[in-house]
């Protein structure tokens, strides 16, 4: 009943004893085992054959050796919220371009959202995504299927059959299910199949015409606001429904301190509730909008810096489980409009890790906590066996230099859309190499 087929890249196994690759002289960081130490790692047949301090200088005989020069070797990142344009909006992004963008950002697994045209609400469309990803993508691609037909929030989708077809979780994409009865039934029904429900929580009536966070900045800019309560009201409702149904629930991206309180209390009551935060809400705030910069327009909107700091603390405390890029490619034309009329969303796959490293460099978050929220935590949430550097695990690995300074140039992004809020931003930290199932899919400078 729960069989899952995915577009996971299979390790190549043509030859019985394929040549091993050894990464030596590395700083191994593996949040799954709380490991942060000098060491090395050996890959054979797309699988991690060995890892540990004993490999720091010694590579097995016959292995091709890569000297990591003390840089960080970590599990590949898992991004649970990526919007692409395939099918329907291929001019914004395809699975192929998204996967190249991911590889360059050190992301080895992406979960693509159902907000496409047509909406991913049928078995045949999950099949389509898996096939297209298998043929065109260079990282693992999993499908988040729609939980209501057409994302309309009215009738639930074939959650059982979609899960069998490989849907990894269910979401209503960028829209919230306003109808409480529908949400109750989705949670009840999904529980029978052990399916995870991922929900964007925003009361559509309260948030309706809002363009940015409701508050002083919006007041001065003369923009309609999205109150924080629009997020917490729906989140609190959902938690009550989880209490009633015991369905597995994940709040897609929370953005304010009040929401964190809701999550904390739900977890204290041992409810099957988790939550995520987007990299944008950890590193940016409403003041960044400045003179109506539409590349900072998103849902949920950027909040105050107090809220941002609360998100960072929530992550440090483990109340927030995962970090997502919320990668959302949009046309330049749709962004170059008066602020209130511009589309929401920002690309983020390639800047995910460098932006997160800002929190490390500023001393706000330990590197281990940052990586945990992008590796083993999303792996556990989604039931993936990756996200860890353990013997026998699939060799989804990144090598990065946490100190390398560079400046973001949007024109050099691999994403088909260039709507990054980090254009011309100074970053510190860069991915040097990305391996998916033991194969190098990205190498800096190559």
């Amino acid at each position, binding site marked *: 009943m729960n069989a899952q087929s995915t577009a996971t890249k299979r390790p190549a196994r043509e030859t019985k004893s394929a040549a091993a690759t050894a990464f030596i002289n590395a700083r191994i960081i593996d949040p799954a085992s709380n490991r942060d130490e000098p060491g090395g790692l050996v890959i054979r047949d797309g699988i991690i054959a060995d890892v540990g301090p004993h490999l720091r200088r010694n590579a097995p005989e016959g292995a091709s050796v890569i000297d990591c020069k003390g840089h960080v070797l970590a599990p590949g990142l898992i991004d649970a919220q990526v919007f692409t344009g395939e099918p329907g909006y291929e001019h914004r992004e395809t699975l192929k371009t998204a996967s190249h963008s991911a590889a360059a950002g050190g992301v080895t697994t992406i979960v693509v959202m159902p907000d496409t045209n047509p909406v991913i609400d049928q078995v045949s469309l999950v099949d389509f995504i898996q096939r297209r990803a298998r043929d065109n993508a260079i990282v693992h691609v999993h499908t988040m299927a729609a939980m209501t037909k057409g994302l309309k929030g*009215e009738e639930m*989708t*074939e959650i059982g059959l979609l899960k069998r077809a490989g849907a990894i979780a269910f979401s209503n994409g960028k829209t919230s299910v306003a109808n409480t009865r529908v949400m109750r039934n989705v949670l009840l029904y999904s529980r029978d199949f052990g399916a995870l429900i991922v929900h964007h929580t925003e009361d559509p009536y309260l948030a309706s015409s809002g363009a940015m966070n409701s508050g002083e900045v919006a007041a001065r800019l003369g923009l309609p606001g999205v109150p924080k309560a629009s997020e917490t009201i729906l989140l609190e409702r959902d938690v009550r429904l989880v209490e009633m149904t015991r369905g597995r629930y994940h709040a897609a991206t929370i953005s304010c301190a009040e929401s964190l309180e809701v999550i904390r209390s739900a977890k204290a009551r041992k409810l099957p509730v988790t939550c995520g935060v987007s990299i944008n809400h950890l590193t940016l705030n409403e003041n960044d909008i400045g003179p109506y910069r539409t590349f900072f327009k998103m849902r949920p909107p950027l909040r105050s810096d107090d809220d941002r700091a609360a998100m960072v603390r929530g992550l440090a405390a483990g109340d927030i489980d995962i970090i997502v890029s919320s990668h959302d490619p949009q046309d330049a034309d749709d962004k170059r409009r008066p602020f209130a009329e511009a589309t929401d969303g920002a690309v983020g796959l390639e800047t995910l890790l460098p932006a997160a490293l800002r929190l490390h460099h500023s001393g706000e978050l330990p590197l281990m906590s940052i990586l945990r929220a992008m590796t083993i935590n999303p792996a556990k949430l989604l039931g993936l066996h990756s996200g860890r550097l353990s013997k026998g695990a699939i060799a989804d690995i990144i090598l990065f230099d946490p100190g390398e300074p560079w400046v973001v140039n949007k024109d050099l992004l691999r994403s088909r859309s260039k709507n990054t809020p980090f254009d011309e931003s100074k970053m510190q930290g860069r991915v040097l190499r990305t391996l998916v199932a033991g194969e190098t899919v990205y190498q800096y400078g190559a």
Partner: protein
Amino acid sequence: MTNAVAKVETLHFPHRHLLTVEGLSAQEINFLLDLADRNADDNRQAGKKRDVLRGRTLINLFFEASTRTQSSFEMAAKRLSADVMNMNVSTSSVQKGETLIDTAMTLNAMRPDIIVVRHHAAGAVELLAQKIDCSVVNAGDGAHQHPTQALLDALTIRRAKGRVAGLTVAICGDILHSRVARSNIVVLNTLGARVRIAAPSTLLPAAPDRLGAEVFTDMWKAVEGADVVMMLRLQRERMEGSYVPSTREYFHFFGLDQEKLARAKPDAIVMHPGPMNRGVEIASTVADHSSSVIREQVEMGVAVRMAVLEALARNLPKR
């Protein structure tokens, strides 16, 4: 509740009405089933008619459309020589705004002996019974009770299996809205069967474990080793996304096909109260298979309703 009117010690069914199966003893149920068993054999003879209800008037008062149950009661009453009147609700004063109670009082004034009532609201039949003098038989009230269905199902099982006690019965489908399930759980438990219910969580009531049955949300597990698989009808308006996503998904996970049936005992029987949605809750191959007793259920329906009318008639005032 049934009104116990213990008039004569020797009466085996000392009730004025049959409103619910709740509270009936195994002895009372078996008395009705024994009576019905004989009726079933008689009904297969050429001379089917008896004089038990001669001179008595029965009104079929159906507020909810029904072909099967209404005609089954009509045939049962006619085989016992009663005069039968079918109230067509769509043309009655009910459509003109008359309340349930007023309708009851009006009919009561016509001095019928037995009224058979079906109503879409749970509890409506009991309310009506409080207001009228004659015997009332519940032919289904909302999602509450359908006593004669449970009795005819028990008789069908007893005739097919020789007993009810000790059997494992899996009731599968829309438990939430089913008066058939609620009635069957009670009767089968009273007769000593082990009852399982299986449905997606959206089609289970709150606290389903309190109903007296083992609860499953995985039908494969529910039918494992069952002696009887009883399917329920899924209403069309509940199929497209509100309670279950689609007929396709429902059939896949909760429709009885050969594959799921193979998990039950090799001699398991298949039941359905009808009318069936072929390809939704039951595959045609299963519905028409030799293990299916669905047609026998219809036959037993007439026999059981005759037994109920006969038992109640014995308690009617003599003139």
